[in-house]
């Protein structure tokens, strides 16, 4: 094709038209993205912002939070949502690191999910719709904190998932099927039901995550950061805290109080 004035104008016209179409098609998405970003950072349109504080000064490494989580959420030993590792500071002092899902305000796992099975609720919690998950495991690849667990094994719906579960009554949550991913939910089933009954999560045990309730030394504290009088708001205001891998921009909703002698930048 010769490049003469006529053809050049044609090409420019086509380019302009396609740009306009692309802009028109993406505009609604951009608007939604901006709206999302505002609701994430400000949290003004959301009534609550659920936050967990883990005090590394207090934690004694008893593993109760790990076990409580397994019992309540029907989690097998090799798929623990809430994990405990023994770490040490640069001066050699041992501390106990426990880690639930951090419920990032900018969750990489929800961004990459092709079906929206992992999504962020209005109150900032990152949760899953197990009925939408296709098991592609992109969320496992994207999560910086190794929070995601996949159901590799066939799931026996009758046998208990672990030795910690009561053999009577029924589990608090449904058992996940083979081939889907799962993760810590901050016990949303307790939060939502508690709020319906006028309870305050973080204060009333029936509306608080199991790991927080069971902690014998109160190393885990839960509450609403949008409520300036809540315990979590008070602690975050008055105590130095840090979050994991903040440089990634994930803005986790789990805050840690550093252990004695720990250098945090």
């Amino acid at each position: 094709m010769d490049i003469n004035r006529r053809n050049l104008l044609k090409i420019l016209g086509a380019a302009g038209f396609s740009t306009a179409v692309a802009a028109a098609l993406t505009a609604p998405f951009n608007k939604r993205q901006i709206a999302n970003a505002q609701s994430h950072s400000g949290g003004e349109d959301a009534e609550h912002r659920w936050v967990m504080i883990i005090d590394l000064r207090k934690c004694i490494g008893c593993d109760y939070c790990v076990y409580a989580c397994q019992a309540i959420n029907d989690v097998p030993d090799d798929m623990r949502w809430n994990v405990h590792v023994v770490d040490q500071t640069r001066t050699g002092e041992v501390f106990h690191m426990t880690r639930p899902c951090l419920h990032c305000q900018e969750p990489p796992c929800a961004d990459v999910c092709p079906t929206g099975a992992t999504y962020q609720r209005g109150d900032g919690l990152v949760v899953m719709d197990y009925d939408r998950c296709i098991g592609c495991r992109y969320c496992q690849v994207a999560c910086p904190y190794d929070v995601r667990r996949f159901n590799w094994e066939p799931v026996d719906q009758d046998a208990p998932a672990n030795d910690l579960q009561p053999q009577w009554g029924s589990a608090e949550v449904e058992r996940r099927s083979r081939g889907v991913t799962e993760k810590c939910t901050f016990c949303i089933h307790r939060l939502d039901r508690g709020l319906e009954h006028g309870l305050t999560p973080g204060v009333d045990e029936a509306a608080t995550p199991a790991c927080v309730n069971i902690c014998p030394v109160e190393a885990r504290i839960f509450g609403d950061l949008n409520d300036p009088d809540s315990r979590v708001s008070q602690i975050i205001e008055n105590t130095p805290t840090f979050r994991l891998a903040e440089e990634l921009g994930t803005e986790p909703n789990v805050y840690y109080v550093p252990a004695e002698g720990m250098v945090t930048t």
Partner: protein
Amino acid sequence: MTTATAQRTQTAQPPNAPFIIWVGLLGLLMVWGAVSGIIVLTIGLAVTGLTDQVPWGLWIVLDLSAISLGAGAFIFSAIVYLLKLERFRIFARVAVLVGFLGYTSAMLALFLDIGRPDRFFYPIIFPNVHSVLWEITMCVVLYFAVLAAEMAPVVLESRFFSRWPQAAQIGHQIHKATPFLAVVGLGLSLLHQSSLGATYGVIAARPLWYKPSLPIMFILSAAAGGIGATILGVHVVSYFKGKFVIKKKVIEQAAIIAGGMLALYLYIKIWDWATTTYYSSTAARETDLALLRLTTPYDTSFWLVEVLLGGMIPLVIFFWPRLRRNFWWLSLASLLTVVGIVFLRWNVTVAGLVVPLDWSPGSAFLFPRIFYAPTVPELGAFFGIVAYALLGYTLAVRFLPIFEEEEEPPSSMPIDETAPA
């Protein structure tokens, strides 16, 4: 030499012993693959070597590689229908065939790889438009439809359908839409071939992946590998027919295009290595790279296989006229290009995953070395799917009108290529 060719030409029509052995071998591999597939679908992904730390492995590599090797279809479409280089039109059908087989292989691998194959269509009905993987899924599905439409006339023209005259007519009608399909296919391919690299590139959690160069490397290597795979396919058929099914000169011109793409890819690759190693490096990436080099033979697979065998050597062959004109050297270059792009995908996938994520704020290195090796059912499905693609190619070039009439007199058959051209 001429007699050998004559014999070969004569025995081309009725099935001969090597053909039966070859098809039988592929059949056996496919049985292994089918058994593995059934095991995976009934017992679950627990039978694979995959873990929560390395959730993607051999099948994802197969998937990415098959899609990349199918890139010849869109490259030749662009060359023929946009650049109007008519002499390459003869490549269109074989490139579309390779693409069709590549994309169906990839979808077979994905079907096994996802945990809930019964929900494979969920990205279409529950879209998350922010996900790179969603974009790839949609592009692959739509592009597969394009490839199927481009394949349809070839199948409908075949001898089997000649008993229904309407079939050829329908085929002809579909064929008329080819230029339009080619442009749509080009758009879709440019989108998803690069997004396959972006799948890794957008993951901020993995310092070895988090860089802007991966989409560019993936699309350029796919262009080179797609042409390489097509040339390789043409050469194999030419060898067994004892004559070039596409004019030798046109194959050589295609080789130059492959070489150009490979040169661009290598340039970006070396630039990427230099930037990520020296002047734009981050502490996290340096730590991860050091760990990777300590625990895996990454240096060997990167420099020896990816750069030297899969890049430099084929590049020299593609651009050195004397070597390029030689049938065997050009076959070797095409094969090495294919190997190189498969290794790029393996190295990117596994390297990013086997380095542990260190999220604890302390100083102790807590997380053990992660190991990944495919298990027997994983290998079975892998080889079964590869065998499917090879069998599809073997049968298609035998029974479908993939190549037009003889392009060259038998005097220029490949075995004469040792003589100066």
